[in-house]
């Protein structure tokens, strides 16, 4: 019984508390904006909309980053596909080094403004930790285990899905969680290209010098990252640690 309560708390309780704190914060600032200029920005409607846009951006970018980063990391570990993997890695590396502003400036010509470009820039920013960790995680598996799997006639795909990925799971998850946090933070840049999100609040606050607007944006962004990270952490623990107490 206690177990159930504890589990319930770990799965739902903590995120719920964080959400309540965020909600309380929002209610407070909306009712006490401390000035007309801030009040115009800080309406429930605006805040919710920015939050929704932010989450949308983050989810799509992160999904795509995982969808590309994990396979690319895997490619890097295959001796034969190493070359392709290297190319992908270098592209990702270069992509990552180009400041998001420059990316926006250079790519909006092709991708248009708004959501799509925002996702693209974020995607470039999230992909590296995922790719790198996938590679490192798979590489650090004990060779005896892989040999056993080979000997059992598992084909490379099976070895990957049944053995390598589950075993390197904690490292890959560390990459994804890092990516989530970076992504939530960087998504605030999306405001510059009209992709919305909590960045709208932060940059508006900066340009009219109203700290409370900045704070609201920064706080909600931080909370969002913490909650997403927490949930991923729980999922990770659940999947790896079911009955392992080591």
């Amino acid at each position: 019984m206690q177990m159930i309560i504890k589990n319930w708390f770990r799965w739902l309780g903590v995120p719920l508390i964080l959400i309540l704190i965020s909600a309380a914060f929002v209610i407070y600032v909306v009712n006490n904006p401390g000035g007309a200029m801030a009040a115009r920005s800080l309406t429930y409607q605006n805040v919710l909309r920015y939050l929704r846009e932010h989450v949308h951006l983050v989810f799509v970018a992160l999904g795509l980053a995982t969808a590309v980063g994990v396979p690319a990391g895997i490619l890097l570990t295959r001796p034969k596909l190493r070359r392709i993997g290297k190319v992908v890695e270098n592209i990702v590396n270069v992509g990552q080094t180009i400041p998001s502003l420059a990316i926006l400036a250079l790519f909006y010509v092709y991708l248009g403004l708004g959501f799509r470009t925002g996702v693209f820039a974020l995607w470039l920013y999230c992909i590296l930790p995922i790719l790198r960790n996938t590679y490192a995680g798979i590489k650090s598996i004990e060779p005896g285990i892989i040999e056993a799997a080979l000997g059992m006639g598992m084909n490379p795909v099976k070895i990957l899905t049944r053995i390598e990925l589950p075993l390197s799971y904690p490292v890959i998850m560390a990459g994804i969680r890092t990516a989530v946090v970076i992504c939530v933070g960087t998504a605030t840049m999306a405001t510059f290209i009209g992709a919305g999100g909590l960045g709208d609040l932060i940059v508006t606050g900066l340009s009219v010098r109203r700290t409370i607007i900045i704070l609201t944006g920064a706080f909600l962004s931080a909370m969002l990252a913490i909650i997403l990270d927490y949930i991923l952490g729980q999922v990770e623990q659940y999947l790896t640690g079911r009955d392992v107490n080591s």
Partner: protein
Amino acid sequence: GCGNDADVSDGWVFATDHEYSVRPDGYPGLTELYGFEFDDVEIMDLGITYGALRDGQVAVAMGFATDGRISAFDLVNLEDDKYFHPVYNCSPNVREEVLDEYPEIADILNEIVPLLDEQTMSSLNAAVDIDEKEPDEVAEEFLLDNGLISGAPPEPDKGPVSVGSKEFTEQLLLGQMAIMVLEEEGFEVDDDTGLGGTAIVREALEGEEIDIYWEYTGTAWMAHLEHEDPITEPQECYDKVREEDLENNGIVWLDYTDFNNTYTIMMRQDDADELGIVTISDLADVINEGTPVP
């Protein structure tokens, strides 16, 4: 914001930068004065509202009136018929002593002023910003076309005078024009264009390092003369600034241009033509009537 890729947003969507979106002298005040509401507001970096408007992501956008992209992207500025925005008309500033020594300078420079309406200035800016021509080329071409210079200036026999400018495109163009017309009249001119930000150039003028540069009425009123309330009527602003600056600082404001490099509300030329919109009031009416975006 809420992203439907690069799709054309439905309804009357307005693109604005962050600052304009909340300032009382920005979007909130504008809609209040003109008495209308947009269906939605998209916040983005100032530099890309033009593109968003061109690409049809929004129906209306704010920007700065003389930006090169307005002409290049086939946009049109709506007339601020209720004088909501502060005014930033441009005028050559000359130090009083210089003008005392060479009074002809006033006429020479005032020759340029009437040629510069918003449309023209925007095209000139576009030639530099979009077509990547050099400011001096563009300036020379423009003056030649308008017959202000011959293309072969005489040997200088007067001067030297020094012309400065701030470091953005429009200022560089205006600076080059000033230099060229003065040279045409036989002045020896030092080129100090691209000096720096507003404060730096103004200081240079007050410190007698340069003799001439182009300044905006609104900027002088707020920044140099340190007034708090903006003035939204061009003539009134010009008159007040000219009077005060001459009296206090010995700086002479020559004629002012028709172009007003202030916030502007823009639409695509086609849309405006189709709906017959010229002024912001027209826009307000159209929206209030519930006319859909073309």
